[in-house]
């Protein structure tokens, strides 16, 4: 499954964060993050649990609003031009967040429709992701009755159904068995150079295998940014995460 070969000729979207800060009450979860992710890049966002990875991607996709600072996708801000951003983004959450009472085909059709697809393009898009993620055999089954691995495929399919230039995946292999992890990684690898991918993970091997550049979040701050070799070889692996236990003031 997950054969390479992306339709369309786009090379991905550019993501830029400028002094991006997010607070929940008095707790600063992200503190002045500035970075740029270039089109076609596979960017790994590393950090321990609670480091701020999910908050960062939620700001990128426009689900949360920044407390201060700015983030843009191809120059569009989720705050002022959310539709332009949402048209460019596909998002796969950490845990499978799907409608268990819908059938796979119905859910993918719905995901495509709310992203603006209609008519023959809609049918083609649904068929394309059904085949690409090897879901044809289960397309009439209820999502809630699928195994975790299949649910993750459906998550990827719904995020990719509108063929977005930017794919944001949060811990995509969490809880999957080794074969399922391999399949997901193969899919993400197939996007290299053709789509921008933001990959949130605390799996260093996964980051090394999939990302061309990584950023390390520690307690809401960007502790390191650079190529995989620069960042991952510069410190002992556990040192990348250690300071994450500290709670910012």
């Amino acid at each position, binding site marked *: 499954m997950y054969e390479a070969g992306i339709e369309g000729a786009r090379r991905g979207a550019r993501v830029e964060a400028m002094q991006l800060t997010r607070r*929940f009450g008095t707790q600063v979860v992200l503190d002045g993050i500035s970075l740029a992710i270039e089109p076609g890049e596979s960017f790994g966002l590393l950090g321990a649990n609670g480091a701020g990875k999910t908050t960062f991607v*939620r700001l990128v*996709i*426009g*689900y*949360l*609003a920044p407390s201060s600072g700015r983030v843009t996708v191809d120059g569009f801000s989720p705050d002022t031009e*959310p*539709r332009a951003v*949402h*048209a460019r*983004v596909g*998002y796969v*959450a950490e*845990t499978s*967040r*799907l*409608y268990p*009472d*819908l059938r796979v085909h*119905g859910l993918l*059709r*719905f*995901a495509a*429709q*709310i*992203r*603006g697809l*209609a008519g023959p393009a809609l049918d083609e898009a649904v068929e394309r992701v059904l085949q690409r993620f090897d879901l044809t055999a289960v397309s009439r089954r*209820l999502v809630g009755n699928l195994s975790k691995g299949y649910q993750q495929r459906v998550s990827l399919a*719904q995020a990719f159904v509108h063929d977005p230039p930017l794919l944001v995946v949060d811990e995509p292999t969490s809880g999957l068995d080794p074969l399922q992890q391999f399949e997901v990684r193969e899919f993400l690898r197939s996007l290299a150079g053709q789509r921008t991918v933001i990959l949130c993970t605390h799996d260093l091997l996964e980051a090394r295998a999939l990302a061309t550049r990584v950023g390390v979040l520690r307690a809401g701050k960007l502790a390191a940014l650079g190529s995989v070799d620069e960042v991952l070889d510069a410190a002992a692996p556990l040192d990348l995460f250690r300071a994450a236990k500290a709670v910012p003031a």
Partner: protein
Amino acid sequence: MRAVCALVRKELAVLFGSPMAYLVLAFVGLVTALLFFDHLRVYNQILFVYTSSASGGFELGTLPERVNLEDQVFLPLMEQLGVALIGIVPLVTMRVFAEERARGTEEILVTSLLTPSQIVLGKFVATFLFVTLMLTCSLVYPAAAVLRAGLGLPHLAAVAIGLFALSFALAAIGLACSALSSNQIMAAVSAYAVAFVIYDFGWLEPFTSAGAAKVLDAISLQPRFVGFAEGIVSLADLLYFAAIVATAAAVARLGLDVVRVR
């Protein structure tokens, strides 16, 4: 607009994909039937007493004015159906926004091309469609009462409009409560609380001034609904229910924004 229609279809598919929709429809049918036949039974007993020669009662045609199908069956049935809706409608609305938030599927909607207003519109329309189906089932008995009481179709139409207006207002209140919570129970309980409080402020009258009592009466649901039950369709009453729906939709819209900035 296609995306909104897709959202409406999804909402209905999710609703009918769970047992809740069928339970609520069955419950409404059962409650309406029980209320109707109970009132009819009491009415028949009253008729029997009054017309029984053995008890030295009234001759036919000399019954007291209040002993008729309209006053003994129809109007109490409408009144009780209105109260029953307060208990039933939040069961339908509690999950609409709260469940999305709890499951995390709200992210799929919020990061789509749907605007927050379109999300609210789609969910309101889907819920109103279900409430329409629910009321259509429950209108069988009021229809029978109206037709048998000789009140005529215009009266039935007025009652139907009143029931729909009341139900939509209650549904809108429930949806607004659901949009402000990620807990379905919390959403249902707050919807019950709001609906019960504004259903009838008559109990406050002894404790307030005449002016305040007049204002409270004007914003109560029940006095507005009674007019429809009596066969009177008033534009002011319709506008009142429409204002509740619009206010609740604005609150629900605000609820989606609150998630982004909380």
